[in-house]
């Protein structure tokens, strides 16, 4: 392109540049084309390269706090600010098509049977955190505690960020690897991770694992959640939805 432009410039007689400025190798164009080629190669082999980079950088603690590509969790929130809740001020309300609507304090959740599991956290944008330790109340145990009423076909979750929602079919919600999590990574669920209580839907992409869980409502039908109204699959099985084929978590 610049080569084709040079004659036009020579015609321009304002003397702004010497012809020297147009001699020499087209290094600029080579750099641009080289970068485009490297970029394409990076797209082709980047998936395995990223894995190696993550492995290589893993021993350097704290790097994932600053580098986007260094592995670890990425923190997503759809609102500007979420008011912090402590285990003391926390309430989980469970209502809708249930026999005994009620709310749970943090201590009451911990008094229910506890389920532990160590499973991966897979985001639909491609990043994955392996072997995350989770602890909390398996959702079926919580549903048993309130009693599912006739006619209920789905479970809707609300975040106390005031905006984010998610949903599961009742059948999905009865899986034992769906957790109302009160702890992760060997400690409490921190505020940035969606604490003090968040959802963890092990077999599905991470947008199902709603943060800052504030309310659970049993409904007749599935109501699509926040990202699902923006084009994501409602049934978000890892490796079998959103056009992706990641390994199951």
């Amino acid at each position, binding site marked *: *392109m*610049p*080569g084709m*432009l040079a004659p*036009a*410039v020579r015609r321009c*007689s*304002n*003397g*702004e*540049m*010497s*012809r*020297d*400025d*147009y001699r*020499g*190798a*087209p*290094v*600029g*164009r080579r*750099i*641009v*084309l*080289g*970068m*485009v080629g*490297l*970029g*394409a190669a*990076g*797209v*082709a*082999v*980047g*998936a395995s*390269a*990223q894995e190696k*980079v993550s492995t290589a950088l893993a021993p350097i603690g704290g790097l*994932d*706090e600053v*580098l*986007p*590509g260094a592995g670890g969790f*990425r*923190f*997503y*929130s*759809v*609102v*500007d600010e*979420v008011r912090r809740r402590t285990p003391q001020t926390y309430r989980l309300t469970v209502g809708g098509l249930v026999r005994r609507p009620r709310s749970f304090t943090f201590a009451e959740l911990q008094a229910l049977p506890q389920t532990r599991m160590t499973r991966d956290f897979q985001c639909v944008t*491609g*990043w994955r955190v392996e072997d995350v330790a989770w602890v909390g109340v398996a959702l079926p145990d919580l549903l048993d505690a309130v009693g599912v009423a006739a006619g209920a076909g789905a479970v809707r979750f609300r975040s106390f960020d005031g905006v984010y929602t998610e949903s599961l079919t009742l059948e999905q919600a009865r899986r034992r690897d769906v957790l109302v999590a009160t702890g992760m990574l060997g400690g409490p669920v921190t505020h*940035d991770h969606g604490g003090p209580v968040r959802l963890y839907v092990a077999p599905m992409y991470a947008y199902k694992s709603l943060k800052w869980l504030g309310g659970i409502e049993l409904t007749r039908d599935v109501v699509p959640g926040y990202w699902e109204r923006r084009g994501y699959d409602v049934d978000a099985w890892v490796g079998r939805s959103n*056009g*992706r*084929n*990641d390994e199951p978590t």
Partner: protein
Amino acid sequence: MSRPEWLTRFTRAERAVHHVTAVLMLVCLGTAACLYVPDLSTWVGRRNLMKTVHVWCGFALPVPVLLGLLSRAFRADLGALNRFGPHDREWLRRADRRAVADGRGIVPVGKFNAGQKLNAAFVAGSILVMLGTGTMLTFPDPWPDDWRTGATFVHDWLTLAVLAVVLGHLGYAVRDPGALGAMWHGRVRRGWAARHHAGWLDAMVKPQDPAPERSVKSGKPDSAKP
């Protein structure tokens, strides 16, 4: 003295292309930080808004350059930025590349020095690569998973390189008020031009002012112009 003290370095169009590209680039970097740096993304939140601003500014990034092609002066800049002559290699090789003797840079640099040329080529290449990978990430459906992860990989790591280069570019600029003025109001003083772009100064003054040409002759082959 009849010689003008101020020389026009950049026309309005050239500056507009620079400024719009700069603003879009900075907004892209700022929103990228809000989307990806954990502390910032938890503090700022508003993912959907940040993503929308980032994507629109990203897609707009090549537009100022494309519109700039309407300007003859900008097209001339592209031509000059593309070509690396003997002076450029010399400039890159020498440790004293910025040295000045008798008020004149010892390397007769043209309108752009080799560092500016490398910066321009890197920015142009980056915009294209970011545009390509960004398009894949914005419209992920047609692509296989490995490519999407690869596009994320390229987009993420190139961001860090772009950030480093932009900071370097700003660093050189703020240390040189003459260069800042050139980009701000378009003009430079003759003395600044002699120190930083002696070859360009020679070419600028030659047509109107042939007399001093002989006294500052740089030994480079003369142009074919009368």
